[in-house]
């Protein structure tokens, strides 16, 4: 190696550079700047020590400790924040070399040793409960690796053990030097030290109870035997409150791809076809039956077979990704949906071309859909995409309410947008129903063998049932969204939740920010700001009339949510291989109950708003006192439905 001493050159080059000057090339970005550390600053330099401080662990693991201290240490270890922490391990392996079985064996032996020891019986019980719990948790995790659900008795034992541990917690004696940031500082010498997060023991016990329940309940999604049912099952978990923590959500995600089978049941391509068959293409020869190739079933037409193959290849992953998105934390879920919308929009345009190829190849006869309208084709594949896209669009808007993204003055507009998307979706479902009904009629008239015919009729019925369930849910959403729209418009007319003309930008530009995720969609085409304002504000309708209309909406909304509550979440039989068969149903029922409560609260709110129509004193009071209850706060009936807390009338 040849070296040059550049000290002198460096000195001469920097002689005229004043303090504060940054000499950098174009590739030195904020990333590099943030990546730099200052040696000697304790906030940044992991190796920086206080006078007399050593970087070595002060806690000696080989030293004897008191049983009370052991209890404290064991509780402290349970009290760890759970997050996606793989990147925080700094490539340090966590006991990968040891098989779960051998650790389990050690825990078991320790349990026996404690049992035989001469310590105080109370302490002995406390330590045994802690060891036993670890043994059980390990057993649960090992079962999960094989996608096996632990028996429910297992979960019950663990809950009892947690209660026992919590009770004996006061026996513990702190060993505060045992937990420090030192190990982390040693490992992470190139990044700033991370502050140690402290979680209260009460929070930790609750967290474990919750996680045990989620871990066992999550297996119930595998009872779903159909793509649509599985989607609802995933939704039920995604929108549980509190949202399941990272580990159970990771388990849920694993079910989608484990051994390349969706839900341990079906290959992704068949999973996709199953979904299409049960919505837009029942009893169709375009789809395979099982292990088929498209050449055999697509009317023997190679071009159609190739087209179908192309479609399936293009879509199977996008489709599974919709489920995967439901396993993300809610912030990321919403952003993933925003990206998925544009992707599906793009694909929809492409798939319309595939639909056209199929129309031509199978000599599809167009039929008039609406009375008096020109004949139209079914566009089965792109119709299927549009349905899912609208579904994602609806969830994206709704999650904005959940995550408190919208400002109070935007609520009228966003509820209007939600109801208008539901409107579009309802029409789309009607259009699909029209073609499925036509297929049903065709099947019933056709000459097939009885077995084939029976199966075809069943497929049509399944699709119509699914369409009905979807329709009922979206109709209920649309009616309640319409009610909420009315409530917030009237409140704004009363001077409540009004945007006080901010100094910068304009309402039009703020509308653009809000609609940014949707502006790129070709359908449904977003409205211009002016058109949207006209629809949202209803300037030409007086307040009394709006309130009358909304009274009707809210009554219908209540009925519609009751109607949804009467339906089951699943369309197809669920397998009963798990004991907790009713978990999904329970959670869904609770969620629908909250929606119904929101609908009732909305209708009461409308009544109040009617009473104060001419009450200026109340309006003045409300302008100061009206609040929007946050999730979890009294008066917030549901994450997606924000009823305002108003002064009494």
């Amino acid at each position, binding site marked *: 190696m040849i070296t040059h001493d550049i000290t002198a050159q460096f000195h001469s080059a920097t002689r005229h550079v*004043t*303090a*504060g*000057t*940054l000499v950098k090339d174009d590739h030195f*970005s*904020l*990333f*590099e*700047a*943030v*990546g*730099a*550390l*200052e040696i000697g*600053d304790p906030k*940044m330099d992991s190796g920086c020590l206080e006078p007399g401080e050593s970087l070595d662990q002060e806690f000696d693991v080989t030293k004897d400790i008191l049983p009370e201290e052991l209890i404290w240490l064991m509780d402290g270890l349970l009290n760890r*924040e759970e*997050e*996606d922490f793989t*990147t*925080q391990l*700094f490539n340090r392996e966590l006991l990968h070399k040891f098989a779960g079985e051998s650790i389990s064996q050690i825990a078991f032996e320790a349990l026996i040793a404690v049992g035989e020891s001469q310590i105080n019986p109370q302490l002995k019980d406390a330590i045994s409960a802690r060891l036993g719990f670890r043994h059980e948790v390990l057993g649960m995790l090992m079962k999960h690796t094989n996608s096996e659900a632990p028996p429910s008795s297992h979960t019950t034992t663990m809950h009892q053990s947690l209660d026992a541990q919590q009770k004996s917690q006061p026996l513990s004696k702190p060993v505060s030097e045992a937990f420090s940031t030192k190990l982390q500082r040693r490992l*992470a010498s*190139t*990044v*700033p030290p*991370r*502050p140690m*997060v402290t979680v209260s023991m009460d929070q930790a016990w609750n967290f474990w109870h919750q996680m045990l329940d989620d871990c066992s309940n999550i297996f119930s999604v595998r009872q779903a035997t159909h793509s649509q049912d599985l989607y609802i099952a995933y939704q039920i978990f995604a929108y549980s409150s509190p949202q399941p923590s990272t580990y159970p959500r990771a388990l849920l995600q694993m079910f989608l791809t484990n051994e390349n089978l969706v839900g341990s049941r079906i290959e992704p391509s068949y999973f996709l076809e199953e979904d299409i068959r049960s919505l837009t293409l029942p009893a169709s020869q375009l789809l395979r039956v099982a292990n088929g190739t498209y050449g055999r079933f697509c009317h023997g037409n190679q071009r159609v077979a190739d087209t179908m193959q192309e479609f399936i290849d293009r879509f199977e992953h996008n489709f599974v990704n919709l489920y995967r998105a439901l396993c993300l*934390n809610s*912030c990321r879920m*919403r*952003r993933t949906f925003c990206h998925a919308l544009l992707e599906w*929009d793009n694909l929809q345009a492409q798939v319309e071309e595939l639909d056209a190829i199929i129309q031509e190849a199978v000599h599809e006869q167009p039929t008039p859909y609406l009375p008096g309208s020109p004949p139209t084709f079914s566009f089965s594949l792109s119709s299927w995409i549009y349905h899912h896209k609208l579904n994602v669009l609806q969830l994206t808007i709704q999650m904005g309410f959940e*995550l*408190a*993204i*919208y400002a109070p003055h935007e609520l009228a507009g966003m509820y209007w947008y939600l109801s208008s998307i539901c409107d579009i979706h309802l029409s789309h479902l009607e259009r699909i129903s029209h073609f499925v009904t036509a297929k049903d009629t065709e099947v019933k008239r056709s000459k097939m063998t009885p077995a084939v015919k029976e199966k075809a009729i069943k497929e049509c019925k399944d699709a119509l049932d699914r369409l009905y369930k979807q329709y009922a849910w979206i109709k209920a959403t649309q009616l309640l969204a319409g009610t909420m729209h009315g409530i917030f418009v009237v409140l704004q007319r009363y001077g409540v939740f009004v945007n*006080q*003309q*901010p*100094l*910068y*930008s*304009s309402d*039009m*530009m*703020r509308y*653009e*920010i*809000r609609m*940014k995720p949707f*502006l*790129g969609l*070709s359908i449904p*085409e977003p409205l*211009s*700001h*002016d058109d949207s304002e006209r629809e949202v504000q209803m300037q030409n309708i007086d307040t009394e009339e709006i309130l009358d209309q909304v009274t009707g909406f809210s009554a219908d909304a209540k009925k519609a949510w009751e109607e949804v509550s009467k339906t089951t979440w699943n369309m197809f039989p669920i397998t009963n291989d798990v004991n907790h068969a009713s978990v999904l149903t329970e959670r869904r029922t609770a969620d629908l109950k909250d929606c119904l409560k929101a609908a009732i609260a909305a209708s009461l709110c409308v009544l109040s708003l009617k009473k104060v129509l001419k009450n200026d004193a109340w309006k003045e009071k409300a302008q100061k006192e009206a609040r929007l209850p946050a999730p979890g706060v009294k008066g917030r009936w549901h994450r997606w439905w924000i009823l305002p807390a108003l002064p009494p009338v």
Partner: protein
Amino acid sequence: MAGTVRMQTSNGRLVRHAMNDEERRPLTPTPTNLPASEIGKLIQTSPPDIAYIQYDISLEPKYLPQMRALIAKDLSEPYSIYVYRYFLYQWPELCFFAIDTSTPDRDLVAVVICKLEKHRCGPLRGYIAMLATQEGYRGKGLARTLVSKGIDLMIAKDADEIALETEETNVAAMKLYESLGFLRSKKLHRYYLNGNSAYRLLLYLKPGVASIPMDEYVDPYELPPSAQDDPMLVQGLEDREELFSRGIV
């Protein structure tokens, strides 16, 4: 249809109608004779003994240590001198601070630090990186004044939009920015080292900013090796700024 910014589609592609220069001009909601780049004057305060100063590189020896001390006090996240110089050397004019002229050393009591550059080859984005007011000087409109000075200068420099992040628990900061016209555009899960989530706030300064084409995502592996270890940096790296943000008042 000239005169509107209505979106229309043809062949699935978004088409923007041409606008004349008059329409491109940022809209100002308040009836005033002030040019758009001086709108902030309407809300700026001048409490007794407070003077506002625009940063200049020659002020580094005296004021940079004070800025760092003030900002570090309110932040768990540590910033090296390079982070400060990254902003202050490239955009010194976009840093404003307030001093107390009644103290012997005319101490710094509030500061805002910003930058302005193209965002993913798309819109010219202003970014409010750090904002802090010393305790005891809060409630006098210092932060509001400093921020509006920053925004006004960004408007004068033809910025398309302004972005920032703020901790979800920082109600005061969100109130300040929302009262200026910012909207929340997304929530960032567990964005800060202390485990708190953040909101991204946005302000558009011209119509049509949402449709300015941008580069696709930033590859997280473009990060320096030191940052690649850091989940807070790699996680959710949809925008460059997401690894960096302050919004303290």
